[in-house]
């Protein structure tokens, strides 16, 4: 029987440090809003130096905006339990009666504030500075794709968090390892179909792959996007992934906690 009041309070409690931290340490405003535009601009000029069609500018801006969420999942969600263990908070979280997923949900919601600000500002600034031409074909569909992609992505992050809780620095470096390959195979900066059907299909396990592909179809003219699958199918697949990852995260957290308690690694620092 889930005590919803307890879980909601736990979510609120854990989101609070993230939100208040963003207010009290405002350096992220410069570093996470303006400076990432530079990397995006580099990719845009790279495409322009090759004479690429202008729609590719839009692909880069979209991919750059969504990078914020991928990085948030990878670093602020997946690795967070590892950091909590190092600072001594993890054992207090595990001691408390709340669900582990409530802690992670709180982290996600709290972090989503500045992640969304970063993503939105990247998109808006990129749109204005580089003159991205949009052809929004279905605004409701776009919102649905965006939200479902995020839910599925954060569900995946929760699943990773369970691994990192136990496996320490090795898992932290796996996060680092996963960063660029996912940019590549998920088609952050070009249509994923260019990688071939099977690579795209395999990469679809990462929700952002199909999410980006669907958003490209809904934001830009269909003829230039080279979609992998129709966006409605991609949305359905991501819905399935959202449920799958959340359920998997729940089981994985439970199992990893059990393993950690059995091996005595839940409170072991500097692994």
């Amino acid at each position: 029987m889930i005590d919803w009041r307890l879980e909601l309070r736990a979510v609120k409690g854990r989101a609070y440090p993230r939100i208040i931290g963003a207010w009290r340490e405002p350096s992220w405003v410069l570093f996470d809003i303006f400076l990432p535009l530079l990397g995006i601009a580099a990719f845009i000029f790279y495409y322009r130096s090759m004479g690429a069609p202008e729609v590719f500018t839009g692909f880069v801006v979209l991919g750059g905006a969504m990078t914020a969420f991928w990085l948030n999942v990878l670093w602020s969600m997946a690795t967070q339990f590892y950091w909590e263990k190092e600072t001594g908070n993890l054992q207090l979280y595990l001691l408390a009666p709340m669900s582990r997923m409530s802690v992670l949900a709180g982290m996600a919601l709290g972090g989503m504030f500045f992640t969304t600000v970063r993503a939105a500002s990247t998109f808006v600034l990129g749109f204005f500075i580089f003159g991205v031409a949009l052809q929004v074909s279905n605004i409701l569909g776009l919102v649905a794709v965006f939200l479902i992609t995020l839910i599925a992505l954060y569900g995946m992050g929760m699943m990773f968090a369970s691994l990192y809780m136990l496996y320490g620095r090795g898992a932290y470096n796996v996060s680092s390892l996963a960063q660029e390959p996912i940019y590549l195979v998920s088609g952050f900066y070009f249509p994923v179909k260019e990688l071939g059907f099977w690579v795209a299909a395999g990469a679809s396990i990462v929700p952002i792959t199909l999410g980006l592909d669907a958003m490209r179809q809904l934001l830009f003219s269909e003829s230039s996007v080279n979609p992998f699958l129709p966006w409605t199918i991609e949305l359905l697949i991501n819905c399935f992934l959202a449920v799958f990852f959340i359920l998997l995260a729940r089981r994985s957290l439970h199992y990893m906690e059990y393993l950690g308690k059995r091996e005595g690694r839940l409170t072991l620092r500097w692994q």
Partner: protein
Amino acid sequence: MAVRDHLRTIKYAAWLGWQMDSNWTNPYLFIAYSLVKPIAATLILVFMYLVIFSSALANPAVFSYMYIGNAFYMYVAQVLFGLVMVIYEDREHYQTLKQVYIAPISFYMYIIGRAIPKIILTTIGILITLAFGVVFLSLPIDLLTISWMLLAAAMLLGLLCICMIGIALAGIALLTAKHGSGINEGIAGAFYLFCGVVFPITFLPAWAQSIGLAIPITYWLEIVRRAVLSGSGVPNISGLEAYSNSEIFLLLLFSSLLFFVISIAIFRYADYLARKKGKLDMTTTY
């Protein structure tokens, strides 16, 4: 402080950095990590190229320009990122920063020492990336025609310059929250944009080109390309073709000296502020 003391500091800081950078997993995963990460980063750009040109040989000048630039740019990204993380990790994770700070060693030498294992690991990554390019993507590198002296001189000066910029960023890291690791992304992104890493700076607006021409990384990458591709056909698209090797090298030297002075000034001021505001042992992970 004696040169011997500095060298000892560098040696033990390098040893510490190696322990931390290399002992986190079993050797097979470490090898996979060393292979996959640099190649994946490069393949993003390769596929962006192939989406437009369909073949690596369709426009070899653009391809080799991008490939060499991106490969060697890993030094910039990894060293800058790595040195900022040294501060964050020592301060917040291992909580040893204050002990290191008050020790009778040069903190500059400590940071340079911590950079050395990152340079070594990045070098391995770069060599793997270049080998991959030669074997699978027809990258026109010929070991017999590489200008080794020019490359060695450029690498020495370039890496020193990168380390100094890293020291400046490390100073800024003393003042910022751990989540301000956007500093890496931002500064590395700025260099990526303005320094002709993957596209010639001639494609930038005039004002942006002026910025690029003031940054030593621009000249460093140009001279590295010339050294590595010497004999194979240096792509004449960088916008710096009019300068000879010596002129480029001098431009690199002067701009590096300028950045050296600026970096030291930034670090010293950040260091002063960190001590004044009591930030040397702050924890900001939330």
